[in-house]
């Protein structure tokens, strides 16, 4: 038998939590196990980007990180209401119709929220190359990112 993992202390959307990860548990599994189901598990192998969250403010596929390695980390998910860049991106996605089925949207918004402002459409496309959308054809997503970046306080 293998030994259990030690407890990890995390900041999840600004709240301090202590989790006892199951051996081999990935961040996406733990988030959803703890009721944070806004983040969607897609391919589970890092290809689709639907489970993208911020780990210490960096977009990260939550299926490619073990909870056990995150002791002390700051996790931000689509449920976060305090992050202004995420809030602005949510609003721009809605007003630009940048979602249809919505499966990719939480990860897409998280990833898009960390694209440096002033990015060209090509730079936005390159930055979102790891986030797959099967509905929109991406045009409305690129527009939404540009719109969010043009809004005041960006």
């Amino acid at each position, binding site marked *: *038998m293998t030994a*259990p993992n030690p407890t990890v202390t995390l900041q999840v959307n600004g709240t301090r939590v202590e989790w006892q990860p199951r051996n081999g548990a990935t961040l996406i599994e733990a988030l959803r196990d703890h009721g944070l189901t806004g983040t969607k598990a897609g391919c*589970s192998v*890092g290809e689709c980007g639907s489970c993208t969250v911020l780990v210490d403010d960096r*977009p990260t596929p939550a299926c490619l*990180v*073990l909870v056990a390695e995150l002791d002390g980390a700051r996790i931000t998910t689509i449920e976060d209401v305090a992050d202004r860049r995420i809030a602005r991106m949510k609003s721009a996605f809605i007003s630009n119709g940048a979602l249809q089925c919505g499966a990719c949207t939480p990860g897409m918004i998280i990833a898009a929220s960390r694209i440096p402002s002033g990015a060209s459409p090509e730079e936005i496309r390159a930055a979102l190359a790891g986030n797959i959308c099967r509905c929109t054809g991406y045009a409305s997503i690129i527009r939404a990112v540009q719109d969010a970046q043009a809004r005041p306080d960006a």
Partner: protein
Amino acid sequence: MTEGRHAQPPTYHRAVSLADARRHLGRRGACVYAGGTDLLVALRAGAPWVAGVRHLVDIKGLDALRGIARVGDGIRIGSLVTGAELATSALVRRVAPVLCEAAALAAAPWVRARGTVGGNLMSPHPAGDLATALLAMGSTAEFVTPAVLRRSIAIQALLAGHARIPPGAVMTGVRAPVAPSSAYQRVGRRLAFTRAVIAVGVVRHGAQLRVAAAGLGARPMLLAEGATVPGEDGALVDGLVRRAIGRLRPARGTGRA
């Protein structure tokens, strides 16, 4: 991992020093864990190469395994250097464009930010872009073993499966001669995160060429070494890569899983 996919999910250990890593790696079923972009996927899928893994030894905290530096006539790259670091390094762009271009094409942005040089060489990936570029450069991987011995292994032997790596060894870095005249290209189904159908890296030293390719077999392979080319034209290497890709045909079944 979801229950049932991996019979005994591995225990996680964070190494605080190289000595600590070697201690953890002395256990039966211990495996180095770094970026995790291949290893976690393999564990989830129950891939044969991770069947015996019981302990993951996380070496990401070991700063001695980071950094890119010019050393003599070559370049040294720490085993924890990520694809994103290689793709954006001004030094790598100048002295090894083949590696810079390969890194910029590898996987997708968030995966490049995690996946490491060491992982790309050590996981049995058939079309690792970093591995292919490093093979074209004639690189050597450096390991430390649990017995605190240092070993250097040519990447050609490593990728061909000819190298005997002691259990518990940790790759500390990669050394390669500089390759200012070099290029990398790949043909894939789409830009982000598809394994290359075919990828080719070419390095020219004077009139001598080294050509490595991915997508032709189980691992990247060296296609030509010491082939001679006339002239000194800087655009020549890029043209050779294009011509090489035009002539190659992918192996069956390796295009995309």
